[in-house]
């Protein structure tokens, strides 16, 4: 399972040793696709407006609405104005300079795999390139452009959400550094869609610049990868399907932050402290951020993926032979499935190359201890050397599972642990040689005003959720074995078939929560078995799945990891059965379920504060909708939810069987 990965190079090192100004002003001569010369933003706009596709849609819209084509064209032109980037080298240089300063204060290092850069450079010359970075921070796209500038690579144009445009000045700056802006929703707006897709395709087809966007659609607040969005991926693959380009190279990029700038912001957001509108002043409040140490960033440019080779034998391009290619059409089912599978593959490729810091393992262990202690009323925290020993154990396990772990080899384990803890001192406390989550104190600098039990609960939850977001970074490594561990626990016998059924149930239940490729149940099951057998935690025969003696510990760890999610989904089912009135709508779901959960948490009937996460709640609802246990109906209000109580009840029961109670020794009555 040990994967060969490239070495990293710290690009800040040179910045610390030479002039930032000279760096920002240096000669920048990137190689372009097939020796293209870059074209002006205006030329690009007129190419888009004159494209056959857009002309066709304009005349269609004009026929449908009875408006003059010129008017519709005006609209299209306005949309394009709002959308288009206006990349300017001077702005890039400005950012190169300021970001150098900022990065040097914030981060210890920015590590980039240079071999990945070389591969990218090669790819850019051969085919149009799409960059797909993971999305965990606002920082991501500036960071990407910064790195590409540093390596003298073609600067990408980046699809950014419209919310940035709220920040007047910043929005324009970003536009001048290559961002183009898309509205969050434009469902039925044919004209908008057409301008947008043609804009992206024109840039891509002509190889004017690498196109960059976030497959996950938005920043993941939980550090878990999000279910990929397919719209843009569809658009960038379309020129290949239609033969307009020979191939498209898609490059997954994994950006891992040792400490996420938005850490506490995210936690609050998920707890329902309303998200501050992304305004300029909001971003500048983050100024205090500048005084802190955010450790290092690792950016891994993955292997470029050829869309052509992925599509080989899966997509019949002849389908496009019988209709002029500029007439927009809904992608066929074949294509939709292909794009969907590809999107999952790419997200998994991002996950695989995410660098995990030791702290990620520590956070996982500390969270588990936190919950066990909390219920058992034991002594608070865990002894430092015990934590270190466990961390070393977990390090070895995760390596065997193929994790891309950045565990400094030159330090002793206890040095590693203490340096990790000190970087995250906002989240943990060490007292009398014992380590615990910093839940007693209100989290990171919050004023001491939490008076009501609910407020106190929420402020504790901020710390737990922040911590969970680090644990989540490692979830992709453990998720398949963890599903298997829970399945073994739930299955009434050791029969392989039964374990598989149980695995399959869980996997299906959680496919909105974790990245589990559609239709890959058998593969996932086999992968999980393989890993657990390899680490001698399981014995798998033709018929049976048996946990070994030494496997107990691994399985206990794995089931505990999944347990908060099981409880979360369970309690949401309970909520839907007990409280959901006819008037429950999608919109009211989160506040209502939150209230329900707070009540139970305060009453001590729930173990995991984590289940307060709106992310989990949304995912659970999406899963229930997908499974048909809840339906959206046209009630009094749009998005009214209709609960199938029988089904929800039975799901809750089945989930209950999977709970980790017996592994955690301390059984708890709920």
């Amino acid at each position, binding site marked *: 399972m040990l994967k060969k990965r490239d070495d990293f190079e710290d690009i800040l090192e040179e910045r610390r040793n030479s002039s930032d100004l000279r760096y920002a002003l240096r000669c920048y001569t990137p190689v372009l696709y097939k020796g293209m010369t870059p074209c002006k933003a205006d030329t690009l706009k007129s190419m888009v407006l004159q494209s056959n596709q857009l002309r066709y849609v304009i005349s269609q819209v004009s026929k449908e609405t009875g408006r003059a084509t010129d008017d519709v064209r005006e609209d299209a032109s306005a949309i394009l104005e709002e959308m288009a980037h206006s990349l300017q080298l001077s702005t890039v240089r400005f950012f190169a300079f300021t970001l150098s300063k900022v990065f040097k204060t914030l981060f210890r290092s920015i590590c980039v795999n240079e071999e990945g850069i070389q591969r990218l450079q090669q790819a850019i010359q051969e085919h149009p390139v799409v960059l797909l970075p993971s999305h965990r921070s606002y920082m991501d796209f500036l960071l990407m452009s910064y790195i590409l500038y540093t390596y003298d690579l073609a600067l990408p144009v980046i699809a950014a959400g419209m919310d940035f445009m709220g920040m007047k000045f910043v929005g324009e700056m970003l536009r001048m550094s290559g961002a183009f802006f898309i509205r969050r929703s434009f469902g039925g707006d044919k004209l908008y869609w057409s301008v947008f897709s043609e804009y992206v395709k024109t840039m891509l087809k002509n190889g004017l610049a690498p196109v960059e966007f976030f497959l996950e659609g938005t920043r993941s607040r939980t550090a878990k990868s999000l279910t990929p969005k397919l719209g843009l991926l569809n658009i960038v693959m379309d020129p290949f399907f239609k*033969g*307009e380009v*020979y*191939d498209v190279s898609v490059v997954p990029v994994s950006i891992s932050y040792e400490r996420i700038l938005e850490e506490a912001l995210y936690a609050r957001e998920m707890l329902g402290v309303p998200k501050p509108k992304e305004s300029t002043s909001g971003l500048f409040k983050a100024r205090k951020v500048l005084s802190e140490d955010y450790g290092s960033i690792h950016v891994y440019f993955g292997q470029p993926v050829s869309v052509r080779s992925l599509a080989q034998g899966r997509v*019949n*391009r*002849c389908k*496009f*032979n019988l209709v*002029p*290619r500029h007439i927009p059409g809904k992608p066929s089912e074949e294509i939709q499935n292909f794009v969907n599978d590809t999107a999952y593959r790419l997200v998994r490729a991002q996950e695989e190359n995410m660098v995990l810091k030791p702290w990620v393992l520590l956070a996982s262990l500390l969270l588990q201890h936190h919950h066990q202690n909390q219920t058992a009323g034991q002594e608070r925290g865990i002894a430092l050397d015990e934590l270190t020993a466990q961390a070393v154990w977990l390090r070895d396990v995760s390596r065997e599972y193929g994790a891309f772990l950045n565990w400094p080899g030159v330090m002793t384990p206890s040095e590693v642990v203490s340096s990790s803890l000190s970087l995250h001192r906002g989240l943990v406390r060490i007292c009398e040689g014992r380590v615990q989550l910093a839940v007693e104190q209100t989290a990171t600098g919050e004023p001491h005003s939490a008076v009501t039990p609910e407020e106190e609960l929420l402020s504790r939850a901020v710390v737990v959720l922040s911590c969970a977001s680090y644990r989540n970074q490692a979830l992709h490594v453990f998720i398949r074995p963890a599903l298997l561990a829970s399945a073994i626990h739930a299955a009434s016998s050791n029969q392989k078939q039964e374990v598989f059924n149980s695995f399959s149930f869980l996997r299906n239940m959680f496919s909105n929560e974790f990245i589990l490729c559609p239709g890959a149940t058998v593969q996932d099951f086999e992968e999980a078995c393989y890993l657990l057998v390899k680490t001698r935690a399981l014995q798998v025969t033709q018929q049976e799945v048996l946990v070994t003696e030494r496997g107990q510990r691994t399985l206990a760890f794995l089931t505990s990891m999944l347990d908060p999610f099981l409880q979360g989904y369970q309690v949401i089912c309970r909520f839907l059965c007990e409280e959901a009135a006819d008037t429950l709508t999608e919109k009211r779901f989160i506040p209502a379920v939150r209230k329900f959960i707070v009540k139970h948490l305060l009453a001590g009937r729930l173990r995991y504060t984590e289940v307060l996460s709106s992310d989990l709640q949304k995912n659970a609802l999406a899963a229930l909708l997908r499974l048909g246990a809840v339906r959206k109906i046209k009630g009094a209000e749009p998005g009214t939810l209709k609960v199938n109580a029988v089904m929800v009840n039975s799901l809750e029961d089945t989930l209950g069987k999977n709970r980790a109670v017996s592994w955690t020794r301390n059984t708890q009555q709920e």
Partner: protein
Amino acid sequence: MEVLKLKDYKWNAVTAECKAQESQKTAGCSGEAKTVPRKRHEIMKWNGWGYSDSRFLFNKKGQAEFTGKRYRLSGMIMPGLKDWFEVTFGASLQHKTPATPVLTSSSVPPPTLNEAFVEELKSTSIPFSLDAEDRVFRAHGHCLHEIFALREGKFGRVPDMVVWPNCHNDVVNIVELACKHNVCLMPYGGGTSVSSALECPPEETRCIVSLDTSQMNRILWIDEKNLTAHVESGIVGQDLERLLNESGYCTGHEPDSMEFSSLGGWVATRASGMKKNIYGNIEDLVVHIKMVTPQGVIEKSCQGPRMSTGPDIHHFIMGSEGTLGVVTEVTMKIRPMPEYQKYGSVVFPNFEQGVACLREVAKQRCAPASIRLMDNEQFKFGLMYSQMKNENVASLLSFLMKNKCTSLITSFKGFDPNNLCVATLLFEGDREKVLQHEKQVYDIAAKFGGLAAGEDNGQRGYMLTFVIAYLRDLGMDYYVIGESFETSVPWDRVLDICRNVKARIVAECKDKGVQFSPFSTCRVTQTYDAGACVYFYFAFNYRGLSDPVNVYEQVEHAARDEILANGGSLSHHHGVGKLRKEWMRDTVSNVGMGMLKSVKDYVDPKNIFGNGNLL
């Protein structure tokens, strides 16, 4: 401006054996001396292209020359060819792969004969042969794998005997006998097939008889009132044109293979000629067809120029590739010979502009008799033959600059020798109109940045067409194998298909372990209202490969997949044969397949015409 007669370099390719044709108006079966003798191997290569006396070789000085006296290029030295060859393919004159020089009859499998058939055939006095040479010569067309195998002295299933009917009635007799004795018949025209159409199905256990039409080569009558000629199907293109020219007419049908390909072959494969813009493709030229099938003779009852009488039965015959019967006689349209011909050429800054120009020409429906656009690789190849001193791009440019007014010179700044491409043109008609037409086309070209580049360059382009097949044999002497294949495609797809197919070829070669980068180029050879015909040329140096032909075939297969995925057709004119059969169902749909199949089942229930093509 000189009037160039194609004759200058083509029609003198008449063999010494060729005697004066009998009077053109005579009908009947008397066998006279033929242009194409029964013993083809006496004048043509048994394991390569064309006449035995004409070939490329590198002389002692390492310079390329073309032997013989038949062509304009004959006897000429081409100093640039060696460099081009070595640079393009990474080939070397040191590394030779000579062909097996002589055909050893003993390695040809002995014939499986149907004694009863042979006996009855003898009584008809239709000539036939069991000689190994005759049989081997008719066991192949000109696909790469066919020629490669011959050069290695390898023979697969070959026909068991060859018959030479002299007229329609002979064919009727032969077909009757074949049906009676259950013998497999394979019509053979000029043998220029490039679709494996002439390959014997290896699983065929019956006696296979190759029916060589070459001796049915008379023009039976010319009708000057209706401008038609009634011709036997075995006549080869050069004879047909030469004989008609003698009476002041022509058909204008000039496929590149016209020296050797036959009228019947054209009908059977739906051939296309270079000058189709004026004269039409074979389906436009044919007025009446007579074909002998196992069910009897099929023909229409009159020669009306167009009919609404249900689906046109000619269209079951055209493209039937020898699976339904033997085409014996054809009435074709003829035209008075053109008063004036003029070549021309235009250089474009890049291929995109060139295609845009051709598209515009097609849109305005003012295409010259022929207009072809070569990509940059072929442009460079063409230059190599240039008569100018210091043959290279720079000198062409300076030539152009010297000959053009200053305003054009400035526009040359944008010309990158690695992007340039050239269109060759051929105008035909009466002088006034040709000159007018020429101006119109050059004016359009100018709008796309095209600059007139002289008549010589154009003429040379067309001349090269006739020797390109000879050139392949030279390549094969030095580890280089290659071939061309074609498609037709809607206008909006032309650029995409060219780019993608060329790139696919390069990628597949790399993938299959070809050590040297392949020659992967294309040209647009015909324009239509709704699209164009595109040719791809693909060749590579196979040193280091254990099974080069297999690699070649895999790459060509992938290239065909790519063509289809890019909206190209399975074939514009080469046909399906056995080489492209696997794609037929997808091409014509299940129902379409069923239709074709039911026609075959009705016409030839015993599969007497069992060459296995098409379906």
